[in-house]
């Protein structure tokens, strides 16, 4: 099944480009470490999922590029074409001349309705090119105006036009210390709207990725390109083909559907966090070896202690005593309770890996059986030159603190009424803000009481 990616705004387009680049370079790589047959099956599956084979022989990304100003899209298109290994279709982009000015209301209330037809036409065309449509993957930041506001509007349109398709929003959370002054308003408006139309939100935080770049990747002068490449690697590690547990011998045909089924049992809980290990500079890879027990142990502790990367994990945090039913407020502090987890293993000897530690009932809430709350996907085909790599997609309290922080700051600003005139002039009133705050406080409360 194929996934259509919608890249929204500067961030969405810049990341989207890195994602397709990473996927393409992975399948062209010779470090698969598996049988030729396995490798070919992997390549075919990836190509069907993300690329369209046209007569030109260079795979064409299944993507729609949207931005309200032209500079980023034209850069993105030309960078892809220059790679020589893949490209975007020349008819799959939509842009205007003047951006959204970091104004969510402008993106949502003005640009959205105005350009709905044109954008949805492009999406329809891409969807029709797929033999079987597996769903939509949108990439956007929530701090700006286009990705956030227009992105929220487009998500709603996707939901209306494709009511039975899966929609996964990949949302970038901005640096805590300002990229955009009104980022907290834009974030609150975006998240609350997405919560009503999308199936799940997969979140990356700039602060976290930045730390990975500086501490694990040893990059001295970190650019947005570096950040985007780490994000692309992490996304690739989730969405490249795998065998699902009971899926038989072939590669999984329905990645988005499987993801939703395993991770989103309840509509109130849709925020997914992502962790990936190991993460290191490419030139260190040949000199490093890892053992699966070690990787799994670290990944599990990263989950429990809500660590952002494999360094600096707090090993003191332990799950509550198994078997006892502890009300949430008595649970040990800093313990990250999960609703559901998905672990994805790639590379050498994956089938021998013991993931029992992730099925420990004390990690989870009591609603689901631990067998249902935890799932694993595997493939012996190594990803992106990492001999062994493990990813964790988690529906847990990972994002509770950052979400609470964003809502708190936005509320603080809202109480002083600062910047509200910029939104009301495009039709977003104070009551709309209040509705959004209410939605998110509900989400925060739900996750807190796990």
């Amino acid at each position, binding site marked *: 099944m194929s996934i259509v990616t919608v890249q929204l705004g500067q961030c969405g387009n810049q990341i989207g480009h890195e994602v397709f680049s990473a996927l393409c370079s992975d399948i062209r790589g010779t470090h698969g470490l598996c049988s030729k047959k396995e490798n070919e099956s992997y390549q075919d599956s990836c190509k069907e999922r993300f690329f369209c084979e046209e007569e030109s022989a260079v795979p064409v990304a299944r993507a729609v590029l949207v931005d309200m100003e032209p*500079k980023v899209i034209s850069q993105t298109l030309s960078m892809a074409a220059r790679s020589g290994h893949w490209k975007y279709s020349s008819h799959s982009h939509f842009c205007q001349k003047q951006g959204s000015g970091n104004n969510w209301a402008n993106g949502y209330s003005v640009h959205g309705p105005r350009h709905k037809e044109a954008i949805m036409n492009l999406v329809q065309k891409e969807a029709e090119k797929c033999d079987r449509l597996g769903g939509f993957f949108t990439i956007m930041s929530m701090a700006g105006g286009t990705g956030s506001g227009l992105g929220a509007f487009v998500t709603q349109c996707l939901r209306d036009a494709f009511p039975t398709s899966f929609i996964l929003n990949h949302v970038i959370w901005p640096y805590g210390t*300002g990229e955009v002054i009104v980022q907290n308003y834009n974030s609150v408006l975006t998240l609350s709207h997405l919560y009503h139309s999308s199936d799940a939100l997969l979140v990356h935080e700039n602060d976290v990725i930045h730390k990975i*770049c500086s501490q694990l990747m040893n990059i001295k*002068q970190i650019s947005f390109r570096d950040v985007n490449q780490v994000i692309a690697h992490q996304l690739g590690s989730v969405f490249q083909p795998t065998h699902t547990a009971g899926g038989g011998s072939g590669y999984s045909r329905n990645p988005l559907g499987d993801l939703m089924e395993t991770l989103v049992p309840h509509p109130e809980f849709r925020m997914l966090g992502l962790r990936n290990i190991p993460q290191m500079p490419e030139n260190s890879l040949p000199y490093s070896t890892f053992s699966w027990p070690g990787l799994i142990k670290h990944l599990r502790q990263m989950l429990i202690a809500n660590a952002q990367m494999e360094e600096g994990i707090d090993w003191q945090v332990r799950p509550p005593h198994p078997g006892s039913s502890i009300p949430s407020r008595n649970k040990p502090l800093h313990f990250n309770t999960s609703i559901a987890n998905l672990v994805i293993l790639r590379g050498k000897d994956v089938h021998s890996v013991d993931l029992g530690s992730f099925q420990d009932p004390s990690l989870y809430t009591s609603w689901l059986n631990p067998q249902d709350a935890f799932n694993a996907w595997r493939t012996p085909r190594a990803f992106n030159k990492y001999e062994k790599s493990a990813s964790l997609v988690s529906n847990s309290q990972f994002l509770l603190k950052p979400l609470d922080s964003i809502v*708190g700051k936005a*509320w603080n600003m809202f109480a002083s009424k600062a910047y509200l*005139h910029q939104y009301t002039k495009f039709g977003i009133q104070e009551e709309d803000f209040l509705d959004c705050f209410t939605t998110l406080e509900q989400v925060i409360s739900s996750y807190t009481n796990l």
Partner: protein
Amino acid sequence: MTQSVVVQVGQCGNQVGCRFWDLALREHAAVNKKGVYDEALSSFFRNVDTRSGDNGPDIYKGKICSLKARALLIDMEEGVVNEILQGPLRDVFDSKQLITDVSGSGNNWAVGHKIYGCQYRENIVEKLRKTAEHCDCLQCFFIIHSMGGGTGSGLGTFVLNLLEEEFPEVYRFVTSVYPSGEDDVITSPYNSVLAMKELNEHADCVLPIENESLFEIVNKIHQMINSGKLGSTVKPNSLVTSSAGSAKTLQEKPFDAMNNIVANLLLNLTSSARFEGSLNMDLNEISMNLVPFPRLHYLVSSLTPLYTLADVNVPSRRLDQMFSDAFSRDHQLIQADPKHSLYLACALLVRGNVQVSDLRRNIERLKPSLHFVSWNQEGWKTGLCSVPPVGHSHSLLALANNTCVKPTFIELKDRFMKLYKKKAHLHHYLQIDGMEQSCFSEAVSSLSDLIEEYNELDATKGGPRIDPSRLKIAV
């Protein structure tokens, strides 16, 4: 890509404007090696096919034929505009973009605003419409003028009003040169306060500039160059005050160095809208992020570095120095010290070889020494543009919405009241049709209200931080 139109009014406005166009051409020439008319150029210039004379059609792609500035030059005296038209920039403007008269405004705001405004209204509207028609997507008007005189101040603010009426969707950014205390125009306080009321009500963003600050920056640079302290030589075209490499070959006039600073300010302000970068900052984003309440739209600006040393190696330390300088008192373009006042919002637009980590590192470093208003503790707007300005490997423009503008306004009001109490020179204004005493009282009242808004914000500085309680959800 969007276009912007520059409206330069009065002697000061036109002299600064002239430097702006000169340096803009220089900047685009440095970036655009192939002579192709691209989108970056189109933001300020039209490409006209002049083979069939001055009324040739616009060419939207391909080789550069003849560049025409998207500008309107307005002055009620002919001297300055004539000089521009006889100088090296004469081909950049055509006669349809000029509005001139002979006798000037006599340093009288009322003459500029009421008499000439009325007289030239239709002419101005028609020429503005023409300029707008040449634009595919007009985003912003830049008005350049001074506050202390008659034309720039009076007619300039009249045009501001007109722009709001005729083009309500287009942003209005005003670069205003405020008079200094020792200004030789006695009535400059009247003109400035009358103009302030218009700026309060009709501008989206105002960038106030004070001649004193420009003068001090120019002196500072001269001292550095002539002191021999610098081990290596300074690259001549890197001076923020220099015209080197531009079309201007005649001897520099005394205000040129100062006006170049303002020209560079405008170039840096628009750089991210014109050129690519990893985090674009368009003009509409500046207004969105830096104006929390409609009337508080006065932005204090600073440009660094003022010059580049000739050696190419730029270690990280020097980069950090650039950030520190942007917040120092002597780099601000008005007499103000933002560090000791309260920030409502701050924007950093970086050009050149600077990455997000450099930006983050410096924000973290400088944040503790700055005071931000309680509801905007992390109030930073950042932009990264890949193309550096001519002669530099990187540069920084800082725009601050900060209560440090208050002293400038208070002084202005004091100077106004000194004259007004004695009714000095008032008759020159009141004898103009349409002018009444109430114009004055309303203007000073508007200024007082503005000062009071800044006072209220200042009162919150350093006070206890009480976060409003969050919404409670029934569990």
